[in-house]
């Protein structure tokens, strides 16, 4: 099952994955491990974090360049090879 990021609050009196009781941490826990910890009262989910990109992101209109344009600005083929003579 896919892991999802979340912000958690550590409950009770025991540290959970190194986080002290009362502290908040963010992690992508294994879903089954998360559910067990919730059922036991070790942690509480404060917020699910699902990163998304807002808006419409596209490449510039002139990108990628045509082959002719690319040939004009790129180095000749083999220009970066080092000769055997050193």
């Amino acid at each position, binding site marked *: 099952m896919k892991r999802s990021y979340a912000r958690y609050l550590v409950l009770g009196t025991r540290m959970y994955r190194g986080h002290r009781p009362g502290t908040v941490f963010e992690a992508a826990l294994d879903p089954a*491990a998360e559910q*067990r*910890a919730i059922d036991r009262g070790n942690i509480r989910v404060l917020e699910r974090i699902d990163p998304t990109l807002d808006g419409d992101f596209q490449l510039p209109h002139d990108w990628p360049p045509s082959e002719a344009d690319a040939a004009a600005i790129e180095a000749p083929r083999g220009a970066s090879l080092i000769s055997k003579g050193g």
Partner: protein
Amino acid sequence: MAYTKKLALHDKITIDGVDMSNAFRSFGQPNEKAQVDVSGFSVSGANETLAGAKTQSFEGEAFYTKESYALLKPLFDNGTVFEVEWQPDGLVDATREVYFGDCMMFTFGPSVTRGDVEVFPCTFMAATENGIQSSAAT
């Protein structure tokens, strides 16, 4: 030059993410490889041996309380694969090596004796091909 010596007092033990350091009074991580006899006839008659399959586990003695029961019994009953971590001296020294692995419990048998401290043996067997690994703390 003398080697460092320490008493085992501050080990950090984490079971399924939960700090159970104070619930154990002994803990260890035995590893054993099967010794496979591959001896043939020879002048010396000495045995030849190859190392076979590796068996890994965590073993310890936990105090039998309602807290340890609440955590461990469901893991045993459900056949859950869960993370176990052991860091010697880890409660006071975060730089110490860490032993970790996904494990299962195949036995759960509390047994108490009148007048004695209520403890029971716990064995966590490595459950995945990754086995139990160790690494220096980062």
